[in-house]
């Protein structure tokens, strides 16, 4: 007995699709629903990982470099200087040691100390380099000075910007303007520079302070050149913190706390 059905203009004629066709026909799915479903499945299949992206597994499993500093205490603001000036570098090595499977996932966000999870709103305010040129000025002293000044007697803004290194560090970790390999390469160079500073403070390094300054500037330029197009706010924040970071690096006492 031939089954006659009224044509459904908005439904799919899927008699040639076998059991699936009959199911769809019974359900009377509109064609757009079928198409959307197929597109959804196809798109889900497209969720892929970068073919060439390096996996985080090798960087996570490799031993930390001997020069890598220990995690800084949460309360010590100068202690964050190394991680920030060196910036991004700590991101790859701090990746979780697990995940042996070589996934091509972008760099996993490392376990960050509590202090490094400061909100982005605490970013270092952008000021002119001249205002931030006071080396050795810490955020604590700036904050104390700002708090001690009476509101009525201080109409002018604070001359020294607060150096929020933890925020800078976190922003550098999170930025997508720098790739995994580049971040790791920057970390290597930052560690090398910190080693030279350490040797300088111990009176053993061959480099003079002028040479260290040149290397520091060069490294900073590299970071800024990587950030200036893809993450201009972060580049500006780092640029404005240049002298404050330098002040920490050149102060033996502050550097010792790194």
């Amino acid at each position: 007995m031939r089954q006659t059905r009224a044509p459904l203009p908005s439904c799919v004629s899927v008699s040639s699709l076998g059991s699936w066709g009959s199911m769809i026909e019974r359900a009377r799915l509109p064609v757009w629903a079928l198409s959307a479903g197929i597109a959804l499945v196809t798109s889900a299949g497209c969720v892929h990982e970068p073919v060439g992206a390096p996996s985080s597994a090798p960087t996570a499993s490799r031993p930390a470099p001997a020069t890598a500093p220990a995690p800084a205490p949460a309360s010590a603001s100068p202690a964050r200087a190394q991680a920030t000036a060196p910036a991004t570098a700590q991101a790859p090595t701090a990746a979780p040691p697990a995940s042996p499977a070589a996934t091509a996932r972008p760099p996993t966000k490392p376990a960050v100390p509590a202090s490094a999870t400061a909100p982005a709103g605490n970013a270092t305010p952008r000021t002119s380099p001249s205002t931030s040129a006071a080396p050795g000025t810490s955020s604590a002293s700036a904050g104390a000075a700002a708090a001690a000044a009476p509101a009525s007697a201080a109409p002018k803004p604070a001359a020294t910007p607060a150096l929020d290194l933890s925020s800078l560090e976190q922003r550098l970790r999170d930025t997508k303007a720098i790739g995994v390999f580049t971040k790791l390469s920057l970390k290597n160079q930052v560690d090398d520079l910190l080693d030279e500073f350490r040797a300088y403070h111990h009176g053993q390094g061959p480099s003079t302070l002028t040479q260290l300054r040149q290397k520091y500037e060069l490294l900073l330029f590299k970071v800024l050149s990587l950030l200036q197009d893809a993450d201009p706010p972060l580049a500006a924040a780092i640029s404005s913190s240049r002298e404050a970071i330098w002040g920490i690096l050149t102060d033996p006492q502050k550097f010792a706390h790194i």
Partner: protein
Amino acid sequence: MSQRLTALLTFAAAGLGCASARAADDAAFTKDLTATIALQGQPCSKVIDAKRNGDSDYNVTCQDGNRYHVFVDPNGRVVVKKL
């Protein structure tokens, strides 16, 4: 007929979206490799091909003809060797 055309167009759109996403990822990765090579002080105008040898291990071909082996050594250092 129009229904089939709609389905076909949907497939095509999904395929195009997939291809564009992959292309964007590849572009970001080649840019990463280019920056890495430049950070090591080696000349490379632009990475045009990267062959994966293993985890964090690539043979890279630059547009200017230079070829490099970019990898992460056991100490966690990025090494760029000219091939």
